[in-house]
């Protein structure tokens, strides 16, 4: 596999990812492990189940809230925000 890199932004910062990767993979492989805080305890959360079951990994993608970072595929210019 030799995918072309794409550039996305995470909370405004540019980030390089491999085409076809999930947003979660793009973040985790750059060392970003948490991008959300829990409502009650303010605890950090990132990937957990990896397959769309736990909803720990929620992000905002191009303005669309509550998307699962482990399922969304990156594409050029995608704007990702934590919450």
């Amino acid at each position, binding site marked *: *596999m030799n*995918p*072309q890199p794409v550039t996305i932004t995470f909370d405004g910062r540019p980030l390089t990812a*491999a*085409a*076809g*990767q*999930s947003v*979660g*993979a793009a973040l*985790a*492989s750059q060392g970003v*492990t*948490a991008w959300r805080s*829990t*409502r*009650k*305890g303010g*605890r*950090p*959360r*990132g*990937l*957990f*189940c*990896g*397959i*769309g*079951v*736990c*909803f*720990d990994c*929620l992000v905002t*993608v*191009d303005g*669309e809230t*509550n*998307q*699962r970072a*482990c*399922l*969304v*595929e990156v594409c050029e210019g995608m704007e990702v925000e934590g919450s």
Partner: protein
Amino acid sequence: MSVTVDVAVVGAGPAGLAAAVAAAEAGARVAVVDAGNQPGGQFWRHAPETVQRQAADVQADGHGHHGWNTYLDLRARFDAAQHAGRITYLPGLQVWMAERSEDGFVLRTTPAVASAGAAPVTVTADRLVLCPGGYDRQLPVPGWDLPGVLAAGGIQAFIKANGVLPGKRFVIAGTGPFLLPVAAGIAEAGGKVLAVLESSAPSAWLPHLAAASGVPGKALEGAEYAAAFARHRIPYRTRSIVTEVLGSDRASGVRTARVDPAGRVRPGTERVYGDVDVVGFGWGFTPQMELPVSLGVETRLDADGSLVGVVDDRQQSSVPGLYLAGEVTGVGGATLAVLEGLAAGAAAARPDPGVPVKPPAAIARHRRFAQAMHQAHPVPAAWQDWLTPDTTVCRCEEVTAGDITEAREDLGARDVRSLKSFTRAGMGWCQGRVCGFAAACLGAGPGEAPGAGSLAGSAKRPLAAPVGIGELAALDG
């Protein structure tokens, strides 16, 4: 949009692919709905096909996959049936509700990813084959909610789909033969596995058991993993558990201990692994029972304590016209899922074949093997002792073990449904998928296993996936 077919299949993993192919080849018009973007499910998850690829890549995708040739064969037949117009493939859609209609079933779907642009489709079918698979079963321990802690299968899925690792230094813990391919996969991808901690003690039994059950291929798989462990020098520690994940805002280490056969910590055996960035937990799998339960199928408790659907010789559930295949009939691996899928698809295409049809003997052999596996890798009876009162159990609503014990002791909440209403455990985004098993155990009390009723209460979810108000409102029309 709406689609009307003879047979609808939910899931395109090993079971669903096989069911779709078998039904289409038997002459039925088939629709396949799957949340994933491409066929394969959890087991045959592979690099995205949207990225330009060559034939060699397709073979390379099979690296680390058992039964990849089975996948390629099923996939070729699946693609051929699609071209012939026999199979309508609906990827990227999640079924959020399944209903019985007068003469069949109706499935309502929603895009798994909002930005991916798949439009919702309503599928109407005379017969329905449910192959929704499962997910890693979890037991909470202190610190398991720290970032860097992942489901063991989630790590495997991450590597298979993305071709990269979620970290550098790993500890894998839980129980079951599945921990072996996870650790081997990490090492093959260049990660360091500091240890695999297995709570039970399966030693020399595997080869004998595989032979005795008539599935010698399983012994071979075991030998391959043993070789991979030796090659990468991965320590495999039996009767050992992670008692705590260490770290403040992310996992940085684990505390481990040896346990007795009941899972009680042996004092003086504690040890700390520092410099860990990913901890993977897997305690077997939980079948996704919400769709079968919502349609009213008869259920039972399997040998691993999971709630599963009851099926007859042709994979038909207690609901006429509704067939089940794969993990939802009992966790048993991909080979069994394919065999069941083939049987279910053929039966759904021809509900009344005119002559008696006997199930393939291989199904019975693989089920026997799976049962023996489950018995060799039980959830440790004393696991509740590992918790502290402030250990998070429900990650979504942040409900602690202490909150649940209090609801059980003071309010008499002993099943998942009453625990939910008193503590909110299982009320969050995941609707109790992650904490359901653990909460059911805690409700039953220390050392107790939950009954089918409590687990069924946990699998009863009003919606099988979160949907927008618009989709709910459209039901009125």
